[in-house]
């Protein structure tokens, strides 16, 4: 479990530490005793069948969902009800959603400068420069003046990534960033994510793109029924799955 395929870029510093975390929706026990440590620069892919709690888990990391037991420590700060802590952590953690969730009433550029200006209190000019740099980075700078509704899905998702990057997050969370996209567009987005990974960004990514997992993940985590069933380096994970459940899942996923 400790073998990582490209371990050279990893540092010892712990970025995310989840200890014995449980979560319920009403009476439904959706996450059960989750324990997870993510180091600086580590790239983690989370997979598992639908409804297994993958989204819920990563949404707990920036407190979009509230957990009821256990601890989540992000960059040394514990997530609790203290609203200041949470705002602090959300500034450090970028999140990209399946459905992009761009703000349709703002231009691409305004989408990207909104948080730097209002949360980080940057002057507009500086914020715009940074934003343009990141838009350049995701190769979409020429669309800066357009509205999200005028872009294709892949372009929208890239804007969403740029928007997160504008806050200079230390960790990026991705929740199935490509699953709402048409096949041609998936590649656009994956390329951007691979680029990010190469630059050493700490990433936690829920995805079923096994190609991506194989290529960039330091560790693949398999979840089922609210629990982490197995975690391992990608080649180990794909070639020697330990659990029956994992094998079944992989057989379905890799078949098509």
């Amino acid at each position: 479990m400790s073998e990582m395929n490209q371990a050279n870029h990893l540092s010892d510093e712990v970025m995310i530490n989840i200890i014995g975390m449980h979560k319920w929706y009403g009476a439904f026990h959706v996450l059960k005793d989750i324990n997870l440590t993510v180091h600086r620069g580590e790239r983690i892919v989370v997979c598992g069948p639908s409804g297994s709690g993958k989204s819920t888990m990563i949404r707990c990391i920036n407190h979009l969902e509230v957990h009821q037991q256990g601890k989540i420590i992000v960059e040394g700060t514990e997530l609790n009800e203290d609203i200041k802590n949470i705002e602090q952590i959300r500034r450090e953690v970028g999140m990209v959603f399946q459905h992009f969730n761009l703000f349709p009433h703002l231009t691409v550029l305004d989408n990207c400068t909104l948080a730097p200006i209002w949360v980080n209190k940057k002057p507009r000019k500086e914020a715009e420069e940074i934003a343009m740099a990141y838009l350049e980075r995701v190769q979409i700078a020429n669309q800066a003046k357009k509205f999200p509704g005028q872009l294709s899905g892949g372009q929208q998702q890239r804007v969403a990534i740029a928007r997160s990057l504008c806050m200079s997050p230390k960790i990026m969370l991705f929740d199935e960033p490509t699953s709402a996209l048409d096949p041609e567009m998936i590649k656009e987005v994956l390329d951007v994510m691979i680029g990010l990974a190469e630059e050493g960004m700490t990433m936690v990514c829920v995805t079923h793109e096994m190609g991506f997992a194989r290529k960039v993940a330091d560790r693949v985590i398999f979840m089922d029924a609210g629990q982490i069933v197995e975690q391992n380096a990608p080649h180990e994970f794909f070639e020697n799955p330990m659990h029956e459940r994992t094998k079944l899942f992989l057989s379905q996923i890799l078949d098509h």
Partner: protein
Amino acid sequence: MASDLAPSKPPWHKNPAIRALCFQAVLLLLVGSFLYFIFNNTVTNLENRGITTSFAFLDREAGFGIIQSLIDYSPTSTYGDTFIVGLLNTILVSVIGIILATILGLVIGLARLSRNWLIAKLAGLYIETFRNIPLLLQVFFWYFAVLQALPSPRQTYSLGEWFFLNIRGIYFPKPVPGETFWLVGLTLIVAIIAVIFMARWAHQRQEQTGKQFHTVYVSLGLVLGAPLLMFLILGAPLSWELPALKGFNFQGGVSVIPELSALVIALTIYTASSIAEIVRSGILSVSHGQTEAASSLGLKSSHTMRLVVLPQAMRVVIPPLTSQYLNLTKNSSLAAAIGYPDLVTVFAGTTLNQTGQAVVIIGMTMMVYLSLSLFISLLMNWYNHKVALVER
């Protein structure tokens, strides 16, 4: 689970739950003290001005007359009675208005969808005209038009010795039941019960044998025919009190005063224009595919309407329709403008003025309207819940 693994609690002043609680407490305090401020002012003001506020006045003699009352009312009745009279009159216009507006609205709404171009356009014209003119103006207009158009009692329009129409109102004969008339009533009740049983039987027969039965015609025959037969057998034990011109006015019979007519006409015409739009959108909301599917199964167009289109249209129609009914009821308070003795005119008007009990009277009036609207919204929620489409 070890308790040290519970998420740590932040200090209380940083806890959003506690903050929310504080915010709400402050809000409650503000609202509460605002209400108290008003209450206090009112009490001191009333006291300073020597007004005593209580419900005692409701038992005192009113001393003024009211032109139309559904209960026995004379100037010796109490102020409490004026409340009842006003309330009943409000209910009367509302109920008549609701029935007529529904019928007219339905007709106009269907006309709007008619394949006949002229009819559809005329219906559209009707809707756009009456929807965009203030109701109060229409009330005045109709009152004025009604008054202008009608002759004095001496030049009355009449239909034989039975019906009269003049500026004082419409007059009908009033039935005065004879001694054995109750038997006719009894027959009617028996006939209705019989119809209920017959409908059940017809339904069951259809379930079992598939044979359909002309329930509507037979029931009509039964409900109308049986009492009529009984009536004739008993030798027509019913006399009519005919209205007749005595002195200044027609006396006897049943009369409808022009204020009521004008108000009902205005409310009906105004509300029907909204109802027509509701009906139209309701029917349009049922997709064309539904009608096609039904007719390709061989259903007759009347069955398609009854079994497929209406049940689906109702879902869309009922909620806005109910709020139109509510609006009509609230709008009936415009009666005050033309002197129809509804709750606002009689109770919140004359009675308030004679007694000076503004707080109590306005409070009671508002409570009446409020309870009505709450009642109707509860009904509506219940209905919505009942007919909500089941989806995945």
